[in-house]
């Protein structure tokens, strides 16, 4: 069976794999890049299908676009600190700006900042662009930046990046256009961190989030939580080149099929995150273009090493060999994914360890490991939920493989609702889903350090912690990469997190839509597409 190619395996899958390798192989000196901010690097992303034409075409202004994401609710917010899904991020990117943003290769570029400078990676000077105005007409100054960053430290804000912001020990305005940030520990990744969607810059003292007062490319015309938001072109935008669209309307259609049908019937111009299975309908459809990227998010199977059965030596090893990665990649994700090697840095990240092999699918070896652990034949539930994308299907595949070697793994599907607070991180064997993060440091600190808030498998290693801290402060890129490669290997071998695949992202849109590019923060150009795309006449 394995020698048979899936019928929907198209040439684009090979292209995707290639591109991932290319990106992984790209080497850059982070600090040098920082100093030379504003220098445009050659695009490393791969543009596929009809979207390729976008590269050559010259942008034209005008037109309005209605785009649809997949999740939206009354929790929708214009407060960037609270943003939790694509819809929030798309809105934030349209109405606000960050100090920095990430380009298609994952390098930080300057947005509201003129320059971000440091010598020791601990004390940072941020120079702001002058003459940037909020929609209200107020001019951006350092106080706005200080206020915008400091609010993440206040629990009452409910910020999603409270933990990341905590390292900013000192934030102060030096002069109206300069902000000084002192970190608790050196961290060379600060420019990348500041490119996170949550660190959008607001006018100081903003409390009303029923409308957005940002510096962004669009002004907020309509905001109905859970329904839609409409932005109109900001005539006073500080970037000379954008935006091209006259207006952008963003809605969410949670049902994949409905989203696809809305695109096919022309009710929307762009549908984000299509199910790979829909490609049979969308691929080659006249008037429709698809844009595929390796987004870097993944659904993983977590085995808590501090609880039974994960505490038994051999169980995690057995599971790593029991999970059929190829089948998950091909059957569940229909080829729109890269096979994962059980560590969180995805293939499109420049620190991806290309030499680390994914554990092979080997039921016999798994059986042996389970026997060693004394668990063969024990009934073990795997908690899965639609909240962790595709986890139920993955669990089914593991279960089936287990059944063949006499391992009674059962699928315990629980509701989406409350999954993250009730099962994730808590159940002995459960699935998780991690969204793309731009740096290995964020991923490892968040997920694998001994004190990591989301230590999914309760992996504890002092050596790991020490190496992570060392890398964080390093300004030597080669050395830093070496450490990250080692850390990836440590996690892959030692942690109980099985990462079978890095998922691809498919955005489908009318072939009139041009200018879409890759971004390490995920699909829709890391949610910032609105500012960069245009509609061909």
């Amino acid at each position, binding site marked *: 069976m394995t020698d048979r*190619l*899936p019928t929907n395996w198209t040439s684009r899958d090979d292209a995707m794999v290639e591109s991932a390798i290319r990106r992984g192989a790209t080497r850059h000196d982070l600090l040098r890049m920082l100093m030379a901010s504003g220098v445009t690097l050659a695009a490393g992303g791969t543009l596929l299908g009809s979207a390729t034409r976008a590269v050559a075409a010259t942008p034209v202004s005008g037109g309005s676009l209605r785009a649809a994401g997949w999740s939206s609710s009354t929790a929708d917010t214009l407060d960037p600190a609270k943003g939790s899904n694509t819809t929030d991020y798309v809105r934030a990117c349209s109405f606000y700006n960050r100090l920095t943003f990430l380009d298609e290769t994952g390098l930080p570029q300057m947005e509201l900042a003129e320059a971000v400078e440091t010598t020791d990676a601990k004390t940072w000077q941020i120079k702001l662009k002058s003459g940037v105005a909020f929609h209200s007409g107020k001019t951006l100054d350092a106080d706005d930046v200080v206020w915008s960053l400091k609010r993440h430290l206040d629990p009452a804000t409910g910020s999603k990046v409270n933990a990341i912001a905590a390292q900013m020990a000192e934030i102060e305005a030096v002069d109206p256009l300069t902000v000084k940030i002192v970190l608790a520990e050196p961290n060379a990744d600060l420019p990348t961190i500041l490119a996170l969607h949550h660190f959008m810059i607001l006018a100081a003292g903003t409390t009303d989030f029923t409308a957005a007062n940002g510096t962004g490319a669009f002004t907020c015309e309509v905001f109905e939580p859970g329904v839609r938001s409409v932005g109109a072109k900001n005539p006073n935008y500080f970037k000379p080149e954008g935006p091209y669209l006259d207006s952008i309307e963003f809605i969410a259609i949670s049902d994949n*099929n409905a989203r696809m049908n809305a695109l096919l019937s022309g009710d929307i111009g762009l549908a984000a995150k299509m199910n790979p299975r829909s490609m049979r309908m969308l691929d080659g459809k006249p008037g429709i273009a698809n844009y595929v990227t390796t987004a870097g998010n993944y659904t993983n199977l977590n085995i808590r090493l501090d609880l039974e059965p994960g505490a038994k030596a051999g169980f995690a090893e057995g599971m790593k060999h029991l999970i059929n990665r190829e089948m998950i990649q091909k059957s569940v994700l229909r080829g729109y994914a890269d096979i994962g090697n059980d560590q969180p840095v995805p293939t499109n990240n420049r620190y991806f360890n290309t030499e680390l092999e994914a554990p092979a699918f080997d039921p016999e070896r798994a059986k042996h490991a389970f026997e060693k652990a004394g668990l063969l034949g024990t009934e073990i539930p795997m908690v899965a939920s639609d909240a962790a994308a595709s986890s139920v299907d993955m669990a089914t595949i593991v279960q089936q493989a287990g059944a063949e070697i006499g391992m009674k793994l059962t699928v315990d599907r629980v*509701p989406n609702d409350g999954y993250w607070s009730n099962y994730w991180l808590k159940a002995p064997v459960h699935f998780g889903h991690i969204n793309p993060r731009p740096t290995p440091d964020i991923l490892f600190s968040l997920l694998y350090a001994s004190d990591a808030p989301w230590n999914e498998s309760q992996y504890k290693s002092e050596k790991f912690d020490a190496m992570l801290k060392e890398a964080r402060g390093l300004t030597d890129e080669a050395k830093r990469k070496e450490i990250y490669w080692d850390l990836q290997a440590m996690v892959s071998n030692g942690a109980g997190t099985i990462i079978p695949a890095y998922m691809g992202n498919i955005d489908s849109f009318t072939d009139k839509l041009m200018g879409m590019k890759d971004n390490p923060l995920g699909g829709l150009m890391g949610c910032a597409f609105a500012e960069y795309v245009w509609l061909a006449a």
Partner: protein
Amino acid sequence: MISVLRTSPRPGGTGPSWRFNWVGRIGLAMILFWAVVAIFAPMIAPYPIGEIADWDYFGPMSGQFWLGSDYLGRDVLSRILVGSRYTVGISLAAVFAACAGGVILGMVAAVMGGLFDTLLSRLLDAFNGIPSLLFGLVVVAAVGSSIPVLVLTLAAIYLPGAYRFARALSVNVNAMDFVTVARARGERTPYLIFREIFPNILGPVLADLGVRFVFIVLLLSGLSFLGLGVQPPNADWGALVRENIEGLSLGAPAVIFPCIAIATLTISVNMFIDNLPKKIRDRSE
């Protein structure tokens, strides 16, 4: 015989007769067919239910996969056959639980009357006002999902309806003289409800049970949406439709056949009930 119709509320008829017309027989035959399938499903299913037997998804009908393959490349025929166990079994259990609870409470309320009746009726009415979706969510969150929980949840959702129906019927029977005779004899409530009232509302209750069965089959598929469903890789028919719904645009048999299975079951239950011998149905008015 005919003029008796005027004075007596119901003609007696002549003993139980189980004669159906052909529509009723077809309905019964289909129901029995699915019952047999449900019992022997694991023996006749060509593939294990969770096995991904094909790299292709939404495959067409073929010699290898009679009813095509599903979204993961699993055999649809096997999944429908095994799914019949869940759809038929759970729906039946739930409908019986709902009707048993509803009917007993309904009869007790009718016999006891007064405050008990008023309170129970109000309470169950209020329960009707709570969207079943919210109820489902609470149940899963509070006790998790398993087949018994599923059955009880479905039963709870349909209990107020069964209660209302049974109560209305029981109130009528309760007003009959033979119940008064029993009461005057000094009989207690359990005797009154089980021996005097129950046999006389059984017919319409059975008919009601059938209609509710159809709704439960459909609701079952809705609940799997909330995570309150049969655990994978097993799936009831409604869940099969839902998980393969994307195949609809491709005309995939994976979505069409589970629909046909649901339709054959529910339509045949309806045909059977609508054509029950008049003797049984007569009492339903």
